């Protein structure tokens, strides 16, 4: 990796200094959450929308690793649950919506609505 080219994409006079600092490793690249392949797999999914199973697998991987580190990002359980819902795995979907709600109280109203929606959909499909 040739780092100096970063300077060309960053505007502002203070950036060369930052560049020097990152080169020196003054700050370790620490993040609160484990994102793993989330961004890359979402990008690939948008590029190849038929590859939903691949996206599902990638999300499962991010969650497994994130749980082992105790660093699952906000929204990830819900994102995964939504894909499971699209794949017709309603029971699993609800379980992940519950997990999101339990982990992030901010999501509780939204997740409650989703859980109701999945159950409506399931009972509608069972008729």
């Amino acid at each position, binding site marked *: *990796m*040739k*780092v*100096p*080219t*970063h300077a*060309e*994409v*960053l*505007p502002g006079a*203070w*950036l060369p*200094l*930052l*560049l020097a*600092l*990152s080169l020196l490793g*003054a*700050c*370790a*690249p620490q*993040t*609160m*959450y484990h*994102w793993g392949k*989330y*961004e*890359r797999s*979402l*990008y690939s*999914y*948008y*590029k190849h929308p038929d590859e939903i199973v691949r996206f599902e697998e990638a999300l499962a991987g991010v969650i497994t690793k994130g749980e082992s580190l105790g660093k699952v*990002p*906000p*929204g*990830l359980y*819900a*994102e995964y649950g*939504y*894909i499971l819902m*699209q794949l017709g795995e309603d029971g699993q979907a609800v379980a992940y919506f519950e997990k999101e709600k339990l982990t*992030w109280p*901010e*999501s*509780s*109203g*939204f997740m409650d*609505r989703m859980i109701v929606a999945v159950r409506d959909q399931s009972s509608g499909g069972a008729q």
Partner: protein
Amino acid sequence: MSVRGHGQHEPGRPAFVGLLCAALLAISSAACTPTLIDKKDYSAFRASHPRSVLIVPVINRSVDVDAPDYFLSTISRVVAERGYYVYPVNMVRGLLDDDGLSEATLVHEGDPTRLAEIFGVDSILYITIERWDARYAVLSTTVTVEFSYLLKDGEKGNELWRAQELLVYQPNQTSNSGNPLADLVAQALVAAFTKALPNYIPLAQQANAAAVVRPYKGIPAGPYHGDYQQDQDRF
């Protein structure tokens, strides 16, 4: 591949780290030069103190029809790492789609308080892609991204924060192999690869990080961040 990767290999991360360093630097320098810094007005933001952010599908003013979807993969991380509960972007996009709101303009022009009520969210982040393009030339290709960001309060609908970010990527103009002909060939190769596969994602990530994290201009730390309500000197 090695040429395309040249300088583009995961630049998002080091730049993000750099920005965090900027935050730290700013703390130490703020005491010396407070009057020189033009801080944004954060009073509306502080009054609202949102915990959660809904990122809605982005408006596209570029000619690249895929840009809005690709962009969505670059924004959650930086906002979440800033300390906010970020709604799952793909799920939100899918649900809005199902409701006939696949057109981002409709969502952006709609009532933010209604949207916030439906999702139970504290704030909504509206992003517009102003530029997402590559200008081709024989020896160098310039890739440009530009975004505008607008955060609105979910309860009152008023503006909490806004930003605009422009980033330009130009592959190495100066090579120094000592052999001018080899340098020229190398430049042409880089330009050709950039032309074939302009890599917007790291640029978008850097733009987002700059917009969100930069002291005096970005978003104050959220409830899951260690600096929550401790960063009034910078935000």
